């Protein structure tokens, strides 16, 4: 093993790989299994839900969270809105017909276009498998990363329910799937959206997911550990059992010799994560939900324009999504990918050629069951009086309208009201119901 790894990258380096701490985790995590209480210890909140819907599983949902507040205005560029260019004289992405610029917005529909670094997604968009949503987000107005992420990942607007929206989805849909890998969070921590999920595994590497030691003794040691963790029921018991079950499944996979079907994945953490998710999908291990984080989007300073720090991050996102899309072609009819972030950024660029915390943002939805080739937006406009709060893109489509539709149409779960309590989903029309 090498000595201390201290790698240093570009001037504004990645805020990467880590989950921001959410309030959900500040409180106790509960385990949800329909309305069944699994002899929960006293510290766990009791949550009563309606009986789970019993039915076949739908798509595998891959949820990609861009941590830090991604600047959606520079990703899905409203090049048809002059106010965009007025407020972003230095960091704005040139119009598609700007002859002076070497790199320009890739036009999609005459009003919106993709940042050139996201160009690998254009073909997916044209193929009809990518939909973009704009002026979307949550009602949260704090402009605090932690509050905004917390509310978004819990999928709730009120305090008191400390489970994540994905955990509630899993709890309200009984697919008869008992896989230890029904839900996977890539990394050393589970994201807050999975808080409370009974069957969720934090996974860093398939190849290293086993107990160290001499083969002849590992089995014996595992038996002892299992007994020790099941002696007293506590927060770790379910995690330990989940870990043993996941070891059994993953030990049968050969990650080192995995060959992606399409182009190569980018050689960074996000690319490795997407590759692992693809392998799990193709190996049919019963994964219904996978969460992947890509950090580094908190671009207060020097975010760049067509090139620069944020463009590099977008390129990494696009390359990872493109490689994943090619890799899972044989399964694309049964996979939906959602890309989201806690908030967008201020329209006006700041003195450091970056942007401060804003409000409305873009989302991406990718998959075989998506009405793609479209940017879904009730565009609120970017004129001064159309902006929200200190000068931000307003939210005209609640993020739960997007997720709720996917849950019902693509994940086969009709109990959307339990996943987003207190909110009535107003579907956008971007997904095709599974037949």
């Amino acid at each position: 093993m090498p000595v201390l790894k201290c790698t240093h990258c570009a001037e504004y380096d990645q805020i990467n790989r880590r989950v921001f701490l959410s309030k959900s985790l500040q409180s106790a995590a509960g385990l949800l299994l329909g309305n069944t209480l699994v002899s929960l210890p006293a510290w766990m909140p009791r949550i009563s839900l309606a009986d789970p819907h019993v039915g076949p599983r739908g798509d595998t949902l891959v949820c990609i969270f861009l941590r830090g507040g991604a600047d959606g205005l520079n990703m899905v560029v409203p090049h048809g809105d002059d106010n965009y260019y007025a407020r972003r004289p230095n960091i704005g992405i040139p119009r598609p017909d700007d002859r002076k610029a070497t790199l320009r917005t890739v036009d999609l529909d005459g009003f919106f276009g993709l940042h050139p670094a996201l160009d690998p997604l254009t073909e997916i968009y044209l193929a009809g498998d990518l939909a973009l949503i704009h002026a979307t987000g949550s009602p949260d107005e704090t402009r605090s990363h932690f509050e905004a992420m917390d509310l978004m990942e819990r999928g709730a607007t009120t305090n008191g329910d400390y489970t994540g929206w994905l955990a509630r989805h899993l709890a309200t849909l009984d697919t008869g799937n008992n896989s230890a890998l029904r839900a996977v969070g890539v990394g050393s921590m589970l994201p807050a959206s999975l808080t409370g999920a009974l069957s969720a595994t934090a996974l860093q590497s398939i190849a290293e997911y086993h107990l160290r030691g001499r083969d002849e003794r590992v089995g014996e040691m595992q038996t002892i550990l299992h007994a020790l963790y099941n002696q007293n029921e506590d927060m770790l018991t379910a995690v330990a059992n989940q870990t043993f079950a996941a070891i059994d499944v993953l030990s049968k996979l050969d990650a080192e010799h995995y060959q992606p079907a399409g182009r190569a994945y980018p050689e960074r953490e996000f690319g490795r994560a997407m590759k692992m998710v693809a392998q799990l999908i193709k190996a049919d291990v019963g994964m219904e939900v996978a969460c992947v984080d890509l950090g580094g989007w908190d671009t207060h300073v020097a975010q760049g324009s067509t090139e620069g720090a944020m463009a590099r991050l977008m390129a990494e996102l696009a390359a990872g999504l493109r490689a994943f899309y090619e890799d899972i072609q044989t399964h694309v009819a049964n996979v939906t990918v959602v890309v989201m972030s806690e908030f967008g950024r201020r329209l006006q660029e700041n003195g450091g050629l970056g942007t401060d915390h804003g409000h409305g943002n873009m989302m991406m939805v990718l998959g075989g069951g998506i009405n793609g080739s479209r940017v879904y937006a009730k565009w609120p406009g970017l004129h001064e009086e159309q902006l929200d709060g200190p000068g931000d893109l307003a939210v005209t489509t609640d993020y739960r309208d997007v997720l709720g539709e996917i849950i019902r149409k693509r994940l086969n779960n009709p109990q959307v009201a339990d996943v987003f309590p207190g909110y009535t989903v107003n579907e956008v029309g971007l997904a095709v119901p599974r037949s």
Partner: protein
Amino acid sequence: MAFSRREFLKLGSLAAVATTATGCSTIGRQIAANDLPETLAVPTAVSTTVAAQTSVAWRLLNRAAYGPRPGDLDRVTKMGAEGWLEEQLHPEQIEDTAVDLMIRGLTLYHMDASQLIEQEPADGARELIGATIVRALYSNRQLYETMVEFWSDHFNIYLRKVKTMPLLKILDDRDVIRPYALGKFGDLLRASVHSPAMLVYLDNVRNNKSHPNENYARELMELHTLGVHAGYTQADVQELARVLTGWTMRHRGRRVGEVVLNREQHDFGEKRFLGHVLPAGRGVEEIEEVIQILLAHPATAEFIATKLVRRFVADEPPASLVSRVADTFRQTDGDIKSMLRVIFLSEEFATAPPKLKRPFTYMISALRALHADLRPARGLGEWLELLGQLPFHWPPPNGYPDVSPAWATNLLPRWNFALALLHNELPGVNVPFDKILTATDTRNSVRLVHLFAQLVLGRPLDTTAAQLLQDYVGTGEVTDSHIQERLRDAIALMIASPAFQWT
């Protein structure tokens, strides 16, 4: 290859420091390595209750310190909680020769800003993380080190934000966190406002009057003082950002790294902040005034008290204790020692619910329990990354989580760390198995299972665990290599077991 005169001098001085450094560190390490009790008693009884109630001494050693080393539990039990706490609250009076020598052996850590800024950032990161591990592992000033970790989270700085950050963070560690970790919160806050690393990390070096950057202003309120629910508004964030315009560091010259007000970039207009009118025409005085406003705000006392109680007592901080600690904050002008006395001597602490060890504490407490020896220039960084808590590597500004559920999902790396440790597969780490055996009167495998259980868990094994582990090891002499391998596995299993995860 041609060297400039300056580079030549730099190399020369580095070589000279390196020579002395090795000497210091080696002696320091030898002192630390020899600090093992001469005899270690083997417990005879097995506990009949499954979850033995842990003592306050044990809890102090696991929450206000990085776990007991052999002999510590007896010592703290004899001293009593209050005696130990008072000793630990005066770190300057605690003998710490071994660590002092090891730290003296560092090179970058002792440089002034202008020298430091010229160094290789990767060396800075290595020294800083290495020093943090060495201090947690060997220092006798254990409470002080846990408070340094607490404040390093509170005033989180991410080493990979910019290339030079490890060098700037060395200054922050040395001149901000460590001098005030047990001092007055106000002094610590003020030092942090003057920290070049913080101003770079939260982008205030790019905050200017034509286009204010809100990042530092927001986190200064949300994370460093008031907390997000204190009732301030977006307008307060923007006004504070204006106050902080031009507050930057010198980027070049002899006084590089010094924090100064760039008057050309400062907004000298009037501001309204948290109900106060800040008159026009002021610069540094205005920044001092907002520090005073933030310190005097009732939400700050509550927020700091809540965080301290959450870290040291319970994920759900008991309101009664938070309120007493917040009162202490207000009565003592934010005296950290006074708040810690209230916390650690409280009934709430004595009866606190279990709390999961964070990964760094898990690793260090395992090394301490077995009196492991750490050679320099090696690292445990990769393992800390797998476990999820490499120091100074949490990107967002809220610091590593301090509640159990956040850390409960990643057990496998903990188990594998324990196995690697016991089989001496960690680079530079040695468990002095023979030395520990020398301090006992037995070579019998079953008795040794119980000895190590006492070292690792601080109490006898319960009957079920005892049976499982004895059966696994088998009966015999530990001189038999087959038995010894299994004994090492069994000790790893104790460290991997739930009993060692909780404090």
